[in-house]
């Protein structure tokens, strides 16, 4: 009976132990079920970051200037790949991998935490991509993937203004998961950089089921947060005009800015030579980049916004208006040009050695008589010239929503004292009066000045399309005075004796007249010794010593709508290299005017030909 007793005792112990097991099961599966359910979900599900689709950049008619295209690529998760070298060897059997690429991949993998995928190959063709796709299940940690990559269909024509995107730097990326996402790029220059916030959008997340080896088993889109694409950005630029202007100036180191004189919309903003922004997106090679940097024509430099030049004779209208508005000259009043003028103990020469004879304001503008404007400058004084220049938009950089737009320079006494600690001299007033000396303006400044002269409105340049923009207020110039200047500027092109009459002769569109003004900024003074040695003209000088040529113009002359300013570096006098491209761009704008179906007065509806 001892056996039975002890058996029962033992059984009782057994029941207690089984009770403990049941209690444990109860604790795990009932009391703590919720906690373990969460941990199980944590195991089972992952959230993958879905980068947002970058907003497109469109021209004023909706034509894409920057868009996204699919890029077939291969990612490697170093943690899952294990031996990265072996993985790359096997991948290399399918797609050639250069030593440089290999080095880059290994470096990227070393820098990133092991769980973060590294872009191994990008922009594969379909054949190579499908080969990798087929073998991927055997290659641990290798993920074939399709991603969007930025594409600039118009290439170099827009390179400066649109800019480009590039992978963020280490500092840029910080601890942002989006910025560290493989292949993600941010705006690095131009509009892409300036409007990054608008274009970027919001990352989404994709819920996926993963197994213990980290491989994605299935996707659960219904439980995911979709990405919010970046907003499309409408620019005021006209892709056609921009491309035309770029082509027209190809071969030169030049800039062109075209503007709507009533709205301030920038229609073209060109700097030549350009570069292919697509190269920067996928990673430009060191040699290609070096070649761009070493190019004498400075393709990486945006001359339209960052190049500053003396406005030269294009400034004479401002000097003239300064005198007219102050009542210091009458319209018909003449000044006699003998080819030079003596002020104090200095002689100031007119560009025409023989002089222009008796010239009034209209004639002086038409013939660009220096002596007349020396006289006007002397009468008005530097302060009036300075104020008038500012009213026409010169001086501070116009805010067009891009970084790096350079300030111009409109000097006065105060400025000179601050800058050089010296007083202002009368001679400097004279030189300023013909647009030389300390004066500096970018092609953008010149375009704004021309647009304000043309419309009489204080238009500000706009790069981003704004359909609710208000018409700019008037500059406040006596319409009669403006009329007089307009007349002179029209005569420059259309009347014999006008500085551009011979070279241009007109706009080339029936029934439409244009107005313009040449300018040439001296880079190098031809000395008497050189003159004696036979250097007679600009053509005899080496390229980099020749004058900068510039031309500003608008059309139609009687009802201005478009203004164009061009600067051709070392292009010689303004009527030579700069005038024809400027006129041609202006003609393009007139010929392709969206409101051409009706009179020019009709407002731009925003659709070409509409």
């Amino acid at each position: 009976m001892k056996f039975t007793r002890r058996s029962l005792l033992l059984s009782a112990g057994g029941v207690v132990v089984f009770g403990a097991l049941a209690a444990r099961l109860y604790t795990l599966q009932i009391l703590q079920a919720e906690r373990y359910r969460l941990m199980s979900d944590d195991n089972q599900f992952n959230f993958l970051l879905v980068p947002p689709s970058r907003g497109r950049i469109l021209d004023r008619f909706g034509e894409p200037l920057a868009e996204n295209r699919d890029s077939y690529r291969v990612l490697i998760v170093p943690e899952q790949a294990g031996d990265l070298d072996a993985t790359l060897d096997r991948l290399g059997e399918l797609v050639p991998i250069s030593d440089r690429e290999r080095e880059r991949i290994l470096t990227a993998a070393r820098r990133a935490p092991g769980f973060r995928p590294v872009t191994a190959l990008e922009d594969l063709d379909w054949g190579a991509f499908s080969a990798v796709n087929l073998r991927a299940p055997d290659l641990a940690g290798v993920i074939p993937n399709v991603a969007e990559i930025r594409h600039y269909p118009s290439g170099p024509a827009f390179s400066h203004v649109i800019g480009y995107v590039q992978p963020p730097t280490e500092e840029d990326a910080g601890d942002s998961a989006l910025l560290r996402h493989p292949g993600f790029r941010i705006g690095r220059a131009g509009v892409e950089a300036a409007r990054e916030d608008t274009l970027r959008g919001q990352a989404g997340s994709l819920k996926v089921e993963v197994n213990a080896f980290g491989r994605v088993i299935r996707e659960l889109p219904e439980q995911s947060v979709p990405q919010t694409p970046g907003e499309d950005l409408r620019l005021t630029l006209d892709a056609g005009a921009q491309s035309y202007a770029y082509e027209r100036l190809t071969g030169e180191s030049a800039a062109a800015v075209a503007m709507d004189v009533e709205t301030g919309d920038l229609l073209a903003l060109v700097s030549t030579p350009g570069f292919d922004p697509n190269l920067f997106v996928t990673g430009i090679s060191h040699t290609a980049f070096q070649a761009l940097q070493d190019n004498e024509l400075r393709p990486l430099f945006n001359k339209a916004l960052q190049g500053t030049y003396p406005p030269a004779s294009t400034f004479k209208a401002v000097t003239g208006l300064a005198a007219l508005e102050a009542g210091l000259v009458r319209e018909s009043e003449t000044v006699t040009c003998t080819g030079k003028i003596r002020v104090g103990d200095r002689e100031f020469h007119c560009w025409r050695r023989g002089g222009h004879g008796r010239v009034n304001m209209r004639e002086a503008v038409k013939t660009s008589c220096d002596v007349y404007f020396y006289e006007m400058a002397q009468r008005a004084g530097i302060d009036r010239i300075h104020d008038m220049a500012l009213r026409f938009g010169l001086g501070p950089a116009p805010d067009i929503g891009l970084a790096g737009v350079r300030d111009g320079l409109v000097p006065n006494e105060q400025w000179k004292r601050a800058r050089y600690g010296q007083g202002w001299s009368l001679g400097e007033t004279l030189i300023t009066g013909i647009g030389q000396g300390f004066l500096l303006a970018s092609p953008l400044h010149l375009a704004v000045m021309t647009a304000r002269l043309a419309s009489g409105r204080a238009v500000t340049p706009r790069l981003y399309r704004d359909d609710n923009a208000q018409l700019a207020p008037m500059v406040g110039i006596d319409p009669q005075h403006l009329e007089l200047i307009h007349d002179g500027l029209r005569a420059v092109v259309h009347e014999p004796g006008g500085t551009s009459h011979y070279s241009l002769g007109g706009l080339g569109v029936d029934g439409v007249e244009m107005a313009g003004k040449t300018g040439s900024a001296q880079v190098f003074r031809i000395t008497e010794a050189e003159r004696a040695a036979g250097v007679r003209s600009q053509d005899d000088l080496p390229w980099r010593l020749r004058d900068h040529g510039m031309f500003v113009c608008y059309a139609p002359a009687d009802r201005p709508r478009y203004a164009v300013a061009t600067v051709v570096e070392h292009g010689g006098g303004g009527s030579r290299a700069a005038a024809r491209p400027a006129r041609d761009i202006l003609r393009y704008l007139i010929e392709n005017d969206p409101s051409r179906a009706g009179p020019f007065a009709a407002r731009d509806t925003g659709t070409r030909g509409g």
Partner: protein
Amino acid sequence: MAVFRDTVPRTFQGKLYEINWALVLLLCLLGAAGIGMLYSVADGAWDPWATRHATRFLVGLVMMLIVAMMPPRFWMAMSYPAYLGALALLLGVEFFGLTIQGSQRWLELGPIRVQPSEVMKIAVVMALARFYHDLPREKVSGPTGVLVPLALIGMPAVLILHQPDLGTALLVVATGAVLIFLSGLNWRIIGAAAVAAAVAIPLGLRYGLQDYQRERIFTFLNPEDDPMGAGYQILQSKIALGSGGFTGKGFLQGTQSHLNYLPEKQTDFIFTMLGEEFGFVGGIAILLLYLIVLANAVAIATSCKSTFLKMTVMGVATTFALYVIINTGMVMGMLPVVGVPLPLVSYGGTVMLTVLFGFGLILGAHVHRNAELPKGVGLFG
């Protein structure tokens, strides 16, 4: 009926009638649970585990019934030779054994691969049952009654521990201890042994274990300290069980198991998988099945007339119970990971056969419960 029960059936039909078919049915339910879970382990496929498990179970079932029909006298005569044979096999493992996953447990005998430690679990029970059967009651607490069982248990335990297979060694020792207790050993000696164990166990932990065994015990104490290392298995097992909740995720729907977060789910962690897919309901059902099987065994043991049968039944039942307790306790994080399967459910041939052989002895004891077996019939009598 009463008359019939008091006698020992002699005919084949008589014996067949006396088989405890309810117990057989319970064992079949456990085997079926194993087949079902192994089908799920293979993501809903019969291969590679479910079919073979079913085959082994059927073979084992037939063997069990044959064992049950054989006269207990035969088993009594076989007990010492079987013990010696098993001991020899263990020594064979020591010298010629196959090393799998760092421990020598298998011995290849022609086409079959056997695990002598599994055989020993039954052999040591039979040897002890035989010894107590022959031992006069008054000598149980004497020197012979204490030292011989200790030697019978100690020799195989040391060999198994050396393989090293801590789990099985402890199982053999625990089973032996239970039989010594059931023999009617003096409570004072039991108390002294308990004190001695309390001193010896910490020392054994310190000096007697392999590094991996020690590590397993320490990670068992704090699994969440090291979720990707040695504690990974326990943690993932608890996540699987806990996330199963009351009714489970459904057959074939266990995410932890099917996405491979759960290790060794066809063997040691099959209870976890069952808990994940069938929840608390499924887990409790399996535990209840085991408890009913054990209750049956205890009832059979107490109904037997001979000490040999009583001891054999209790010994086999104890081994069986320890399997269940250690396995489920381990996967629920109550005990260290020692690599003990869940009997009849886990995949594994030798365990299946030894367990069913053991139940053959239990069923046989029930059939022959009234048999009077002679005492002290020599070593091989």
